[in-house]
């Protein structure tokens, strides 16, 4: 089976032909596997947002090709709208796109644009709301009465209700408190697990990427700098730091230990793994430090 998204030599130039034209994306090629959870990281201004708006055809590549499900996306530009439904895109601070009188109507906006029959729309609204942890009684309230975190989940439900094959989220947890972050991201993970939907998560939070992603793509100044499994990416923590990215605090701790000459592995990026590594090292030393 073809990869769900295949990108070939994608280049995008802002303001082409103008004196201040900039190469936002520079000859990028990679594939997104069906059903994977891909993390995308990179410093601000590296082209992450430009890249993801290519996935659903909001931006058209200056050169190069995008294949969705093996089909060339721009083969017929008039058909571009169908890819909006195949690749669902949740922008940063998506709560600012809500406009309907009720939560129900707002979530239904996408499915209605798809031209689905009413009963199918209703079914999808309820299903999407459930995935996003919105109770049924909330559906008939105005989205503007809700809390920030709830609004955000309504907006995400609005994209999930289109049942896209790929769900792309740009900083879905930005600005939320720890509980809100945890809630949104674990709901995304549950949705990913239960439906097998491919998920692309763009985030500045290395802790979140480390916790949820199977593979990680690192963008740097419009170029693809790394693409590998999460463990392999965080094993190159020193390089990430040089790119101007932060690494999870636990990775920092292990980098610090190595700097002090302690022999620990480099690919530590979750707290549980860190504990196991330390316990193993202690056991090898004969358990001298045990209480």
């Amino acid at each position, binding site marked *: 089976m073809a990869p769900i998204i295949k990108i070939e030599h994608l280049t995008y130039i802002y303001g082409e032909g103008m004196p201040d034209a900039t190469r936002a994306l520079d000859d990028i090629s990679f594939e997104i596997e069906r059903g994977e959870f891909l993390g995308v990281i990179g410093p601000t201004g590296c082209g992450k947002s430009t890249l993801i708006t290519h996935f659903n055809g909001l931006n058209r590549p200056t050169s190069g090709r995008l294949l969705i499900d093996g089909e060339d996306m721009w083969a017929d530009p008039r058909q571009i709208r169908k890819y909006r439904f195949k690749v669902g895109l949740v*922008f940063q601070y998506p709560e600012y796109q809500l*406009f309907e009188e009720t939560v129900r109507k707002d979530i239904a906006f996408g499915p209605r644009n798809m031209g689905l029959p009413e009963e199918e729309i209703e079914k999808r609204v309820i299903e999407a709301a459930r995935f996003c942890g919105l109770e049924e009684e909330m559906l008939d309230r105005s989205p*503007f009465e809700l809390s920030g975190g709830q609004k955000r989940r309504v907006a995400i439900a609005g994209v999930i209700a289109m049942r896209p094959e790929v769900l792309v989220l740009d900083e879905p947890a930005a600005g939320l408190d720890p509980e809100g972050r945890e809630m949104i991201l674990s709901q995304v993970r549950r949705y990913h697990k239960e439906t097998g939907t491919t998920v692309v998560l763009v985030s500045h939070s290395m802790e979140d990427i480390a916790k949820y992603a199977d593979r990680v793509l690192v963008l740097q100044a419009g170029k693809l700098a790394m693409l590998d499994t999460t463990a392999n990416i965080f094993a190159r923590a020193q390089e990430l730091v040089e790119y101007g990215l932060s690494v999870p605090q636990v990775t920092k701790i292990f980098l610090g230990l190595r700097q002090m000459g302690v022999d620990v592995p480099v690919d530590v990026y979750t707290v549980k793994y860190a504990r196991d590594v330390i316990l193993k090292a202690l056991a090898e030393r004969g358990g001298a430090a045990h209480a």
Partner: protein
Amino acid sequence: MLKDITIGQHFPGDSVIHRMDPRAKLLLTIAYIVALFLGSNPIGLALSVLFLLVAYRVSGIPVRLVGKSLRPILPIILFTAMLNLFFVPGDPIFSWWIITITWQGLYNVMVLSVRIVCLIAGTSLLTYTTSPIVLTDALERLLRPFAKLHLPVHELAMMMTIALRFIPLLIEETDKIMSAQKARGAELDSGKLTDRIRALIPVLIPLFISAFRRADELAMAMECRCYHGGEGRTRLHQLHLGANDYLLTAICAVLFVVIGGSDLLWGMLG
């Protein structure tokens, strides 16, 4: 896309004209417009064009930019030119079927076109060489005496400043909201006119809500920084009229009087 819209047409530079006191520039521009209307004869117009050529040369602004600012009003110029060309009675130069072109008509067209071009080019020079914020400042200071008549001069200037600050932000925001709704399958740039207007609702509602939220937060931030209207306010940048300003203003004033008075001269010649 929306991002390409620029606000104002400031063309930064460091010429004598750029450095001139904005109040002087603003008043001179008004004087120039008055002179143009008083001196609508070949001598006056020739002097007006000459003045502009010199001024553009000194300021280092490429004259072709004037073409750009003329483009939107070109249809109006052409339309009035047509009316004048065909419907002004007088000595015919050319006559065919019902169309008659007269010397008087041709003269009117010339005067009219040159006058409009001078008007646009003259006012554009002001906006090219003066940033909108400085211009707002100059306007506030010139109008300050009217504040005594309860004209809300400071408030108007503050509104202009805030508008200048927030327009780029709101344009960016519109772009973002449009993308977000398109990502949910909204069709914003196709279909019948009525459909398109309806399709704007999902963009306009979030945009208004966001604008109100921003206004609310901005008001609070301004209060935190002790804002309480124009009373007792001082400014970081003081405007000073220097020797250059007086000299240039004097030269221009003399020239504008000549342009304005040229009708008398033209009358004597004719």
